[in-house]
Structures are given as structure tokens and as C-alpha cells.
């Protein structure tokens, strides 16, 4: 795993250099000095990817927006403690991953009971009764909607440790070494988890592959 050390220094972004051209470390150094415009630029760059990532993890849009905002709040409030040993995207994805996993564990403890699925299997786990829809599909739009819903549902059904790895890899497109940094795992473990996640998803999405 390549480690790049950056010497982040405050740069007069507003006068000598446009904010859009600054790299993430320069922006974070400016945030540390109280530059609001630099923080707005960081938010603009990462709000959609982070929100999308968290949404894929927890399958709840409104809550994923809240957690994405919490991610940026933590970036802002801990800017002085940030050490530029990793890329900033690794850093922000790590915060978002921890928040998403905490949310999943909190939900597991609360044991949300769906009004639509009060059934449990022999192991006491809640199962959804999803009777097949025998109506013929109307058009391509409905097919697409159904496919997306199935993908979201399949990802949401994965164990959290597999879910984070597969979303970062196949949805967000991060490399194995970056995923290893985000999840604080070895590359071998990351590859193993992605392989198992794909095997599970293959069974659930076989109709669409």
C-alpha cells in the first residue's frame, strides 16, 4: 500500500488560485484556517458520492442524507487533527463507512419490525414474504424500476462487512488498495469479502444477469 505524505500548507486560494483547481489537501488546509469557501468546495465535490455510498449501505434515502451531512460536520470539526497520510477521499469515505455501519448496528439492536413482514423463520430472523407478481411487465421503464429495486434490495440484504466492500468496489469504483485503507483491512481480506459478496449477489440477482 503506497503511503503518500503531503505537507499541507495554507495557500491563498481566494486570490492567487481558484478554489476549483485546488486539491483536497489544500482545501483542507484552508478549512483549518477558517476558509468557508474551501469547505463549500469540499462539500460540492463529495456530497453526491458520499450520499450515494451511504444510501447503498443503509437503503434509506433520508437517513443517508443526514449521515452524509454528519460526515461533513466531522470533517469540518476535526480539520485541525487531520493528518495527510492518506488521500482525502479515503479519509472521508472512512468516516462515512463508520457512520453507516453504526447506523446498521443500531437498527439491528432496535430490531425494526416491518408492518409488511411480521413473519420469522426457524432461526428467529425476520423474513419478507414477497409473493411473485404474476402480472406481465408493462414497459421498459417498469422493467428498469424493478431491476433497480431488486439490486438495492439484494445489496441491503448482505452482511455489513461484505456490503461495505462490494459497494466501494462495484458501485463507487474504488481500487482494492483504497478500499483496504478505508476499511482498515488488508487487500487480501478486501478481495476475499468482495468475492463472497458477489457469490451471494449472484444467487439473488440471477434473473437479471
Amino acid at each position, binding site marked *: 500500500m503506497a503511503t503518500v505524505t503531503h505537507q499541507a500548507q495554507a495557500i491563498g486560494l481566494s486570490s492567487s488560485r481558484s478554489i476549483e483547481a485546488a486539491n483536497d489537501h489544500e482545501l483542507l488546509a484552508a478549512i483549518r484556517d477558517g476558509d468557508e469557501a474551501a469547505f*463549500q468546495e469540499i*462539500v460540492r465535490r463529495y*456530497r*453526491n458520492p458520499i*450520499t*450515494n455510498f451511504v*444510501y*447503498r449501505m443503509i437503503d434509506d*434515502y433520508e437517513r*443517508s*442524507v443526514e449521515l*452524509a*451531512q*454528519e460526515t*461533513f*460536520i466531522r470533517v*469540518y*470539526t476535526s480539520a485541525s487533527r487531520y493528518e495527510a497520510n492518506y488521500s482525502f477521499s479515503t479519509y472521508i469515505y472512512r468516516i462515512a463507512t463508520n457512520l453507516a455501519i453504526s447506523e446498521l448496528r443500531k437498527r439491528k439492536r432496535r430490531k425494526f419490525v416491518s408492518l409488511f413482514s411480521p413473519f420469522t423463520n426457524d432461526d428467529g430472523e425476520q423474513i419478507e414474504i414477497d409473493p411473485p407478481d404474476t402480472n406481465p411487465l408493462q414497459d421498459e421503464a417498469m422493467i428498469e424500476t424493478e*431491476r*433497480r429495486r431488486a*439490486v*438495492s434490495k439484494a*445489496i441491503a440484504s448482505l452482511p455489513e462487512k461484505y456490503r461495505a466492500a*462490494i459497494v466501494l468496489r*462495484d*458501485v463507487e*469504483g474504488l*481500487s*482494492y488498495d483504497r478500499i483496504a485503507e478505508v476499511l482498515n483491512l488488508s487487500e487480501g481480506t478486501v*478481495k476475499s469479502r*468482495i*468475492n463472497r459478496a*458477489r457469490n451471494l*449477489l*449472484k444467487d439473488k*440477482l440471477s434473473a*437479471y*444477469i
Partner: protein
Amino acid sequence: MGCNEIKRLIDEADRADRLPFDAEKHVADCAGCRSFAGERAGLRSLLASASRVSVPANFDAVLRARLEERTSRRALGWLSPANMFKLGAATAGLAAAIFAAQNLNLLAPADQTVAPAPSASQIAEAVRPTAPTASRAAAPGRDIQRVEPTPNREGFVRPARAQARTTRAAIATATAGRVVPAMVTPSIVIVRDQNGERELPVLPVSVGAQSAMYANPSRSMTRTVAVSF
């Protein structure tokens, strides 16, 4: 290279449609691995094409509001209700601990030997009623009627000052040989009536306590009937 190794290479490839050379060559000849490669490519394409969500229009505004609330909360964090509650609870606990320590005489110096307090009868035995001492100053605007001291059992009449010294010496004798902490040193109350002044023993009370006592000068005794704080 076996099929398991090839499948591992297929799975770890950065792009599903671009396999390593060894894997490409094997897949061309192996139906099983070719099927696996196609399956993996379809799955990865399906996941990558999953619709991406975007933030709502008010995302930045809500984020700014939350950030302002968080930073102001951190600046006055010590004034939070939780911290105020903790401070109050700590103060109450400290006050309770001091009160308990006083009642249990735990605040006495550790190097002193704590002897049992003399009983009321011991104190009464050591202390004899005394005549009013001439050294006591008169209350403002009031003359002291000097009363001749009454003789004791042996018939001796001691001077007032000597009797006062006797009182204190008697107490010291009663507790001689025992180092008594200040908290349990017997106290004396002076009772003035038509017969003169008498020094009566009083059982020790806690610092800050107010005791209501019944005094019987003729019998040289007092009795604590109530204690309040």
C-alpha cells in the same frame, strides 16, 4: 494454472471486460471459466448501473445550520444540562460526605488516639457546682449580685477562680491518660439563676448542631432533648 486460480484472477480484475493475459487464454478454452467470467461481468455491470442518488436541493443549507448548532454547542458545552446536573450531583455528594464524616468523627487527626468519650455521670462526678467567678464580666446594663460561694461536701469553700480551675482540672483528671480528640472534649454550659452561676456538663454535639437541652442546676445535670442542624 487451474480453474480456481483463473476464477480468482477474473474476480480481482480491475475491469470485468479486460482480463489478465493468462486468464484470457484459459477462458478461451474452458467453458466453465468462460461462463464464470460472463456471470461476473454481468453482475458487476448490474451493480455499476444501479441508479445513483443525489442530494436534495436544501442539502447545503441544512448542513450549514447543523454545523452552526454544533459549533455553538461545543463552545458552551460546559453549560449543558447534563454537565449542570453532574455538577449539582457532585456538590450534593460532597456535602453529604462532609456531613457524614462529621457525624462519624472521621475528620479527627489520624495520629491521635480516640478514646471513648467520658460518660455524663463521669463528667458530672468530675464537675462540682461552682460559685460565680468574679472574673466574669457583667452583662451590659446589669449588675451581678455577688453570691457567697456555698461550701462543698467537705465544708471547704474555695475561691471562685480556684473553683473554675478545679472544674477544668477535674475534667482533665477525668480524662487523664487518654488522649481525647477535640470533637469529644466535654463541654460546659454556665447556668445563672438566683443561686448564682453553675457550670453544668454538656454532652458533645456535632459542629453546626443546635441542641435543645433541659438543665437541672440543683442536680448539676443537663439532658439533651433535641438536636437540629
